[in-house]
């Protein structure tokens, strides 16, 4: 099957919820985590009962599950504008304190979406030139999180809907931050960003390393402990 510039394998990819599950399994108990908009928010579905504290950039720690109809409170939203609950131990604070936490290195992990990533771990996620807004757009908390978090995990589809690769030698879109990514988890693979380059660590069942390389513009190094993703 050939689409756009990449060659897609016959085996279909995993769902977005499964990308989120794989990432949830990478999080350690006792960590503070920020989940960006898009696929990253789905990670919260997989961490119930675990000792993982979700920080919401608008000013909340220990963000709880999405609110059911009866619990919706217009004053209690997350960065994606979803109505949320709090939990015993939650706290609320102002935006300048929230970003002191983020920029000051208190976030163990930020899970972010991306438009493009590069082989050096550059992230481009805030500005799609096709929208035609030039150098302005919606930045939000993405630049702070990309730079401030101790570990950055990208959750994204491997290829654009139009069939173009998203893992490139160099990002073409305006950058969110340079050399900030630690891991890339897509609907086909898990890749680690290292000083030597992008290391392909896992593929979804039924997919080979060559399949993934054919969908990726940057050169992939096969990990010594390369294996099938367990979900």
């Amino acid at each position, binding site marked *: 099957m050939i689409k756009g510039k990449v060659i897609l394998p016959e085996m279909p990819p995993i769902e977005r919820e499964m990308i989120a599950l794989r990432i949830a399994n990478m999080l350690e108990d006792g960590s503070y985590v920020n989940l960006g908009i898009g696929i990253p928010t789905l990670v919260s579905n997989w961490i119930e009962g675990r000792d993982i504290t979700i920080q919401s950039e*608008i000013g909340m720690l220990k963000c709880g599950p999405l609110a059911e109809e009866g619990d919706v409170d217009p*004053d209690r939203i997350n960065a994606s504008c979803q109505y949320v609950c709090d939990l015993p131990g939650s706290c609320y604070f102002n935006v*300048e304190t929230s970003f002191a936490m983020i920029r000051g290195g208190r976030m163990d992990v930020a899970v972010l979406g991306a438009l493009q990533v590069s082989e050096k771990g550059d992230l481009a996620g805030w500005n799609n030139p096709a929208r035609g*807004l030039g150098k*302005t*757009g919606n930045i939000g908390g993405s*630049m702070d999180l990309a730079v401030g978090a101790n570990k950055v995990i990208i959750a994204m589809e491997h290829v654009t809907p139009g069939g173009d690769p998203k893992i490139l030698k160099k990002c073409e879109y305006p*950058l969110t931050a340079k050399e900030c990514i630690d891991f890339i988890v897509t609907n086909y693979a898990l890749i680690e960003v290292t000083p030597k380059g992008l290391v392909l660590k896992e593929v979804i069942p039924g997919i080979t390393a060559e399949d993934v390389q054919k969908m990726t513009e940057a050169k992939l190094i096969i990990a010594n402990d390369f294996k099938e993703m367990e979900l």
Partner: protein
Amino acid sequence: MDKLCPNTDIAIADVFDGAVIAFGGFFSAGKPTSLTKALVKKGVKNLTVIVQQVGTGNEEMLELVTNGQIKKAICSYPFPRSATKGADHPFEQAVRKGDIELEVFPIGTFAEKLRCAGAGIPAFYTLVGVGTVVAEGKEVRVFNGKENILESALEPDYAFVHAWKGDAEGNLIYRFTAQNYNNVMAMAARVTIAEVEIFTAMGGLDPNFIHTPGIFVKRLVETGRPEFNRVAV
């Protein structure tokens, strides 16, 4: 002190054409609905608005746009999330046409620029934005082996903030995530006007649990709990 005003029109009486006004609120949470409506009605023009987003989840702000009252916006996440919704959005259309000038910052930088204005710090260095369009034209200095860019304080003429409770001294308490930008904007502006849902008698607020000390607030007006409209982002 007695900072209470009888209504929103009196509270914003001295707002002038060309004023720079910061508005609290993260989409619909904690936005100064009544003060913004009064501003629309007052008809002041050539405004510079400092606000996270323009008009998404905020009809009153959008009215300022469609009335042509805004000359410039300083934001962090100004447009609707999707390009399709954006194409029909009056603010995005105004920016594309060049009717409104727009500057964007990362949220942390945006908040810190305001905080520094309130704290008497003229400028600060940050790692955030290095290597991106945000860094263009800005001084760079190395700290701890890393490049940082110089960002300057941002002082509005006015801040319109929304709080849950306030007293005659101007002390404010916020509710849940409706706090967001309200405190830092209250600190930054030369004149802060607060709309509060509940105005309490002097001594009615626990002094141990004040979010914004009254010294940062010039005037307040009691406006009750706003109507709840679901946000379409």
